């Protein structure tokens, strides 16, 4: 049995100020009971299915797609490769040619993560003008059998428009997209084991997650 050497937390904190995609519900966490009154502390938590770090099921973009409770958990964890796109600028596309140098690692991985470092801009207007995956980049990953992709920006597609080609192609292929992740720059080891398990929310399009990258001892 393998042992864990380290774990990198890849998630944003969820509080009432957590920035959400325009039009999504704003998180609200409030006291439900207290130690003094009821004998224990409890909170009510109001969230959108896409609040903070989250995963999308095919149903997010396709009425015929699987909902988040129907997703095979094997899609939610596995060996990942981090593609370093941290030199990309505002609203810049991640191209097929950016991905090609990583092809050997992609072939031995199950999950591809795009590092843009855009998570550092959370809370600002700039956060919505992030790099995004090009249509051809998405096609290339699907051709290579990559069914789970993640990004440390709020959207794998460009934000603010009305075209979401990566969401559409991953919904059609039955794949999963993890978005609004963080701290990819802190993954300083090879072959991270990525875990992003959704809550078992019946009939939902997605779920907030606590995503991590695990380093195992050799």
């Amino acid at each position, binding site marked *: 049995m393998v042992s864990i050497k380290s774990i990198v937390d890849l998630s944003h904190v969820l509080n009432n100020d957590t920035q959400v995609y325009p039009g999504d519900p704003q998180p609200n966490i409030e006291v439900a009971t207290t130690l003094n009154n009821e004998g224990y502390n409890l909170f009510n938590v109001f969230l*959108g299915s896409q609040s903070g770090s989250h995963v999308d099921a095919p149903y997010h*973009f396709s009425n015929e797609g699987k909902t988040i409770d129907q997703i095979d958990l094997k899609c939610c964890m596995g060996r990942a490769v981090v593609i370093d796109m941290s030199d990309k600028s505002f609203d810049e596309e991640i191209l097929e040619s950016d991905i090609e140098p990583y092809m050997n690692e992609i072939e031995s991985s199950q999950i591809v993560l795009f590092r843009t470092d855009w998570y550092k801009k959370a809370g600002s207007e700039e956060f919505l003008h992030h790099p995004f995956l090009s249509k051809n980049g998405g096609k290339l990953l699907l051709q290579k059998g990559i069914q789970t992709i993640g990004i440390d920006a709020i959207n794998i597609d460009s934000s603010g428009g009305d075209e979401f080609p990566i969401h559409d192609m991953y919904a059609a292929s039955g794949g999963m997209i993890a978005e609004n992740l963080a701290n990819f720059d802190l993954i300083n080891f090879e072959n991270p084991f990525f875990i992003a398990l959704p809550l078992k929310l019946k009939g939902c399009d997605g779920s907030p997650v606590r995503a*991590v990258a695990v380093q195992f001892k050799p």
Partner: protein
Amino acid sequence: MVIGRELTHEKDYCHVDRLTLGTHSGTHIDAPLHFIPDGKSISEYPAEKFVGKGLLVDVRGKMGNEPITAKDLSSYENQLHQGCFAIFMTGWSDHFGTEKYLNHPYLSKEVGEMLESAKVSIVGIDALNIDSTIDDPWDAHNILLSKDILIVENLSNLSVLNSQKSYLYSFLPMKLEDTDGSPVRAVAIEI
């Protein structure tokens, strides 16, 4: 717990739901703040706290509201290592959704103390509560949470695990700032 529609394919292109949850809805984890004055909140623990090796303790056969005793745990005692997760399998998840689910076996105070002295990291159970829900003295909650030992409740499907195998358990909570706990998607991974 309520799931409502916020955006729909017909009018918004994509679909987004509204979730109204308690910090203890469904399968969930308790932080000390749940019971302990000035106790730590769930967001104060690093992610490492929630992923680890576990010991599955088979206590199926207990009756409703029957305590799990030191004797039940005695044959597992030398496998209880510091930092490990102790997972109690009562079989009570089979009664989920019925009145009987509330009348589950629970950890006696002495078992709580054994787990505390073994310095396990997390205690889990496939029932609503590690303490009795009928008598509610909250002894095990107080003993464990006051020593930074977190509690996972409402687990299910433990009977599919093979007691001869070693699993990596993940009880990662949402990063809900300053709350007493969080719903979790709990899994046992065979690696």
